[in-house]
C-alpha cells in the first residue's frame, strides 16, 4: 500500500520544498522535480497488475452522528492503474523535455514547483475513491493549471488566459458540486462503491433526480474536458509554455473529465436521457472543434482544437455507454497528442517562438527527428491503420454504429476533417520550402528534447496492439468488428488527406477562408457580450442600486428622519464616548427594569 502513497505525496513534497527552499536554485529545483516524476513513473509501473484494493488513508472530514464522511481514500482498479501509468509517463517525459525548453526561463523554479503540484493533483483525481476527494483534487488541478498557463505572468494574454481557464472551469464545477450534493442527498454516500450499492434501492420516483444529478456531474466534465459550451478556455490556454500544453491540455487534465465520467458510468447507464445528452454534447463538440481546427494558423491552436475534437469523441463514447472505448481512446490519444504538442514545442523552440504555420515550411529536412516523430503522431491521430489511434478510433466508431446512426455519420465526418486539418498542418509546416528566416535557420533540438519525442513516438505506434495495451492495463473495448467501420474509416482518412494535399501542397498562403470557422463560430464574442451585459452590467446596476437605494434612501433617509424628529437617536449614538456610555447605561437600566419590574 506504500506505492500509491508515494505516488500521491512525493510530488506535493517536491512542490513545497521548491517553493520554500529552492526558489533561488532553479537548476536543482528542476532536477529534483524531474527525479520525483521519474520515481512516480517507476512506482506506477510496479503497480501495474497488482491486486484491486480500496484503502482509506485518513478521514478528512467526518461529522460523527450524522453519517457525513469525506475521506482521502485510494481506490486501485485496472482503471486507476492504467490511468496512473499514462499520467506518470507523459508527466515524466514532459519534465525531461522542459529541462531543455525552459532552460533559461527566469521563473524556472516556480514552473517546476507548479508542475509538481499538478502531478500531485492529477494523481489524486485518479486514485480518488469518492466524489468529494475527486472534487478536491479537481480544484487543485484547476489551480495548478492556472499557475502554469499564467506562468509568464507579465504577459497580459497569458494571465488573462489563465484567469479564463480557471473561471470557465469553475462554472463547470458549479454543476459538479450540485451533482455531488444531489447524489449524496439521494444515496447518502459519496464513495463510488457506496453510490453504486445504493442506486438499485432508489426506486422509480427518484429517477428524475438521478438524471438531474448525473447531468450536473457531467457539467464538471464539460468544464474540465472543454466540451461545448465551455470549450472556450482550452484554445486560449495555449498561451502557457508548450510542455504544459502537452501535459495538461492534451494528455492528462482535460482527460480527467472523461476519466470522471467513466468512473461514474454506472450512473450514466441508469439514465437514458442523461446518456443521450452526453453523447450528443460529445459528438457536437467533436464536429465543431474539427471545423474550427481547419481554419487556424497557429500550430498550437490547431492541436488545441484537435484535442477538443478528440475529447468530444471520448465523451460521445461514454454517452453511448461504451466507456471502455472512451478510455482506450484516452489512452492512445494521451501518447500521440503529447507527442504532437512536444513536437510543436520543439518546432517553436527552433523557430524562435514562431507559432504561425505559414511562416514555417520545410522543417522535415532541417529537423528530421522532430519531423518524423511529428509525422508518426499525425499518423496516429488521423488513424492510419495499425497505429494506436486506428484501433481506438475504430472502437468508438463501432460503438456509434451500434447505438446511434446519426452520431456515427457525425463521427465519420469528423474523421475526414481530422485527416484534412492534420494533413494541412503537416504539409504547410514540414514540407515545401521555408517561408521565413527563422524556419530557414531552424535546426534539430537537443537530445533532452528529442528523446521524449522518440519514446512517445514508439508508444503512439505500438500502444494500440492488444498485448501491449493489456500489459499497461488499458481498457480494451469488447466490441464486434465490422468491416463497414474499417472501410469507412480508411476511406475517411484517404479522402481528408487527399483533399489536404490538393489544397495545400506547394501553397504559400491560405487558399480557402471560411470566416465562421476562423472566428470559432463567434462563441467567444458571444460570451464576451454575455459577461459584459449579464455580469458586469448587472454588477454595475446592483452596485449603483445598493448605494442609491439601500444606502442612500433607507440608511441616510432614516438617519435624516431621526435628525428631523428631534435628533434624539442621533444624539444617542453620535460616536463620542460620553453619549455612547450614556446609551450603554440606558440599555443596562432598561434591561434591569424589564427584568425586575416588568412582571
Amino acid at each position: 500500500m506504500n506505492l500509491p502513497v508515494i505516488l500521491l505525496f512525493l510530488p506535493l513534497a517536491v512542490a513545497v520544498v521548491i517553493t520554500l527552499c529552492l526558489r533561488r536554485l532553479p537548476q536543482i529545483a528542476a532536477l529534483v522535480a524531474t527525479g520525483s516524476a521519474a520515481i512516480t513513473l517507476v512506482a506506477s509501473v510496479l503497480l501495474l497488475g497488482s491486486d484491486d484494493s480500496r484503502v482509506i488513508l485518513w478521514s478528512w472530514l467526518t461529522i460523527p452522528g450524522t453519517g457525513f464522511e469525506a475521506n482521502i481514500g485510494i481506490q486501485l482498479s485496472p482503471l486507476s492503474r492504467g490511468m496512473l501509468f499514462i499520467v506518470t509517463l507523459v508527466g515524466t517525459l514532459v519534465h525531461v523535455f522542459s529541462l531543455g525548453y525552459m532552460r533559461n526561463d527566469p521563473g524556472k523554479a516556480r514552473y517546476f514547483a507548479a508542475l509538481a503540484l499538478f502531478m500531485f493533483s492529477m494523481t489524486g483525481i485518479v486514485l480518488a475513491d469518492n466524489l468529494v476527494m475527486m472534487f478536491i483534487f479537481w480544484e487543485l488541478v484547476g489551480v495548478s493549471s492556472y499557475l502554469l498557463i499564467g506562468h509568464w505572468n507579465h504577459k497580459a494574454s497569458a494571465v488573462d488566459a489563465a484567469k479564463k481557464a480557471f473561471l470557465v472551469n469553475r462554472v463547470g464545477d458549479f454543476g459538479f458540486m450540485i451533482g455531488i450534493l444531489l447524489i449524496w442527498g439521494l444515496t447518502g454516500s459519496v464513495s463510488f462503491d457506496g453510490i453504486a450499492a445504493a442506486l438499485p434501492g432508489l426506486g422509480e420516483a427518484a429517477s428524475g433526480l438521478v438524471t438531474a444529478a448525473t447531468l450536473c456531474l457531467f457539467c464538471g466534465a464539460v468544464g474540465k474536458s472543454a466540451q461545448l459550451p465551455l470549450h472556450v478556455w482550452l484554445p486560449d490556454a495555449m498561451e502557457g509554455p508548450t510542455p504544459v500544453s502537452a501535459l495538461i491540455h492534451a494528455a492528462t487534465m482535460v482527460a480527467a473529465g472523461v476519466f470522471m465520467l467513466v468512473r461514474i458510468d454506472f450512473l450514466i447507464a441508469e439514465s437514458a436521457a442523461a446518456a443521450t445528452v452526453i453523447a450528443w454534447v460529445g459528438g457536437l463538440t467533436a464536429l465543431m472543434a474539427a471545423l474550427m481546427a481547419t481554419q487556424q494558423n497557429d500550430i498550437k491552436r490547431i492541436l488545441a482544437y484537435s484535442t477538443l475534437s478528440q475529447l468530444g469523441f471520448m465523451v460521445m463514447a461514454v454517452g453511448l455507454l461504451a466507456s471502455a472505448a472512451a478510455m482506450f481512446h484516452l489512452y492512445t490519444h494521451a501518447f500521440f497528442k503529447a507527442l504532437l504538442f512536444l513536437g510543436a514545442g520543439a518546432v517553436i523552440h527552433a523557430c524562435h517562438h514562431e507559432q504561425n504555420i505559414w511562416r514555417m515550411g520545410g522543417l522535415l529536412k532541417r529537423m528530421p527527428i522532430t519531423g518524423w516523430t511529428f509525422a508518426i503522431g499525425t499518423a496516429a491521430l488521423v488513424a492510419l491503420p495499425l497505429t494506436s489511434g486506428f484501433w481506438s478510433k475504430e472502437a468508438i466508431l463501432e460503438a456509434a454504429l451500434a447505438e446511434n446512426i446519426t452520431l456515427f455519420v457525425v463521427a465519420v465526418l469528423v474523421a475526414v476533417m481530422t485527416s484534412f486539418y492534420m494533413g494541412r498542418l503537416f504539409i504547410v509546416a514540414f514540407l515545401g520550402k521555408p517561408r521565413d528566416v527563422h524556419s530557414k535557420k531552424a535546426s534539430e533540438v537537443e537530445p533532452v528534447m528529442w528523446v521524449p519525442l522518440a519514446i512517445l513516438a514508439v508508444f503512439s505506434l505500438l500502444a494500440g496492439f492488444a498485448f501491449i495495451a493489456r500489459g499497461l492495463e488499458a481498457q480494451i473495448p469488447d466490441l464486434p468488428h465490422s468491416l463497414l467501420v474499417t472501410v469507412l474509416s480508411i476511406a475517411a482518412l484517404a479522402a481528408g488527406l487527399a483533399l489536404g494535399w490538393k489544397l495545400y501542397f506547394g501553397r504559400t498562403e491560405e487558399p480557402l477562408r471560411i470566416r465562421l470557422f476562423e472566428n470559432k463560430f463567434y462563441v467567444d464574442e458571444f460570451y464576451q457580450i454575455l459577461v459584459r451585459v449579464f455580469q458586469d452590467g448587472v454588477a454595475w446596476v446592483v452596485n449603483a442600486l445598493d448605494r442609491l437605494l439601500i444606502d442612500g434612501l433607507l440608511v441616510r433617509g432614516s438617519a435624516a428622519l431621526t435628525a428631523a424628529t428631534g435628533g434624539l437617536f442621533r444624539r444617542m449614538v453620535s460616536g463620542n464616548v460620553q453619549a455612547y456610555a450614556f446609551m450603554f447605561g440606558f440599555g443596562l437600566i432598561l434591561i434591569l427594569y424589564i427584568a425586575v419590574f416588568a412582571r
Partner: protein
Amino acid sequence: MSILDFIVLLPILAAIAAFAGMPARLSALTGSGLMLLLTGVALALFPEAPRDDAGFAFVADRLIAESPAWSYAVGADGLTMILLLLTALVAFCAAWTSPVSQTGGYYGGCLLIAAGAAGAFVSTDLFFFYAFHELALVPTFLLIGIYGFGEKRAAAWKITIYLGAASLVVLAGLAALVLHHGDGGLTFSIVELQQRAAAAEGGAPAQAWIYLTLLLGFGALVSLFPLHSWAAPAYAAAPTPVAMLHAGVLKKFGIYGLIRVAQPILPEGAAVDWILNLTLLLLLGNILIMGLATIAQRRLEYMVAYSSVMHMGYLFLGLAGGSEIGRQGAIMLMFAHGASIALLFLLCGKMRREIGHTDFDKLGGLAKTVPVMTLLFGIAAFASIGLPGFGNFAGEVLVFFGAFDEMRAGSGVGALQIAAMVAVWGVVISAVYMLRAYRAVFLGEPGGPAPLTDLDLRQRVPAVLLVLALLVAGVAPGLLLQLLDAGPDGAVEATVAAIRACCP
C-alpha cells in the same frame, strides 16, 4: 478563577498599560501574545477538562443578583474554544501588524476590541454576553474615526449609527427572550434559558417574532443583506488592525449569538417556515447581490470588504436548515473566514499605506517587485474563494452538505436545497472578483508608479501564522471540529436535538 477570565483580562490589562503610558507596542504584543499562549494552553486542557451539565468546561460563576438570576459567569464549549483561538490569533497578528509609531490609544483600542470579543464568546450570562460586545464596539467606532483613512468621519458616523441601532434591536430581542422564558423566575443564564427552552412546549408564534428581532439585530451586526451597507465603507476606512479585528472576529458575534442564543433558546421560532424562507431570501441577497456588487468594485480594500459581506451568506446558509453538518460548517467557516479576511486586510493595508491608493486601474504587474506579497495575496485570495486545502473549503462543503441533509430522509428537493444550489453559484462569483483583482493588481504589465516594498521577515510573521491556521483548518478540519463534539452532553448536540424535536 477560570483560565477564561485570564484570557479576557490579559488584553484589558495590556490596554490599560498602553493607555497609562507604558510602551504601547510592547504592551500590545505582550498582552495579545500571552492571550494566544493561554488560549493554546486552554485548548490543550480542554479535552480532559471537567464539564458541567451543559457541556461547558472552565466554568466560573459569580452571582451578582438572585432575582433576576444574574452573574458574571464564564464557560467554554468547543464553539467557544474555536472562536477564542480565532480571536487570540487575529489579535496577535493585528497587534504585530500595527505601525510601530502609533500611540497608546491606538494599541489600547485594538486590545479592547479583542478583549470584548473574547469576553462575549466566553460569557454564559446574557448580560455580559451583550455588554462585552458593546465594550468592543466603542473602540471600533473611535479608532475608525480617529485613525482611519479617507472618509473616516463619514464611515465612523455610519457604522456607529448602524451598529448602535442594531445593538438596540438585539437588546430588545434579548429582553423579550428573557421574558418569554420567564416562568420560574427571570434569569440571564444562557444555560438555564436553554434548558427551559428544551423543556417548554408550544409558543411558536411568539418565538418566531422574537427570533425575527434577533435575526435582524444580529444580522445587521454580521452585515446580513440588506442591513450591510455600513460594512464596506467602514472596513475601507478602518485602520488595518481594526479592519482585521472587526471583519475577522467581532463581526462573528452576530452569528455566534444566533448559534448560542437565538437558535437553542427559540427552537420553535427558528423552525417556523416563514422565518426559514426569509432567512434564505436574505442570505441569497448576500451571496448573489453583494457578490455582484463585489465584482463592480475597483479598489482592492473595497473589493475585500464587499467580499466579506458576501461570504456571510454562507454562514447563514449553514445555520438555516438546523442540520448539525451545516452548523459545524458555519463554525468552521467563521474560523476560516476570520483568518483569511484578516490576512487580506493585512496585505491591503500595507499596500494602501505605502502606495497611497489601491485603484485597479492604476496598478498592475506587482508580482515582479513584490514576489512574497504576491504569493501571500494569492494564497489568501484562493483560500477565500474556497480552494481545497484551506479551511474555507471545508466550511463551505459542510454548509452545502448540511443543506442537503434532510434530503437523505427522502424529502426531495425543497426551498432550502434550491437556495443552496443557487448559493453554489457564489463559488463562481467569488472566483470572478478575486481573480480579477489579483490579475489587475499583481499580474500583467505595471500600471503605474507603485512604491511598494516586499514583506520583510518581521512582516511575514503574522501572514505566515494566518496561512498556517488556514492550512491546518483545511487539511485537518477534524482538529477543530472534534472540539465541538467533545463531552457526552455537548451543547451543540443538545441544540440540534431540541430543534429536531420541534420540527417533524
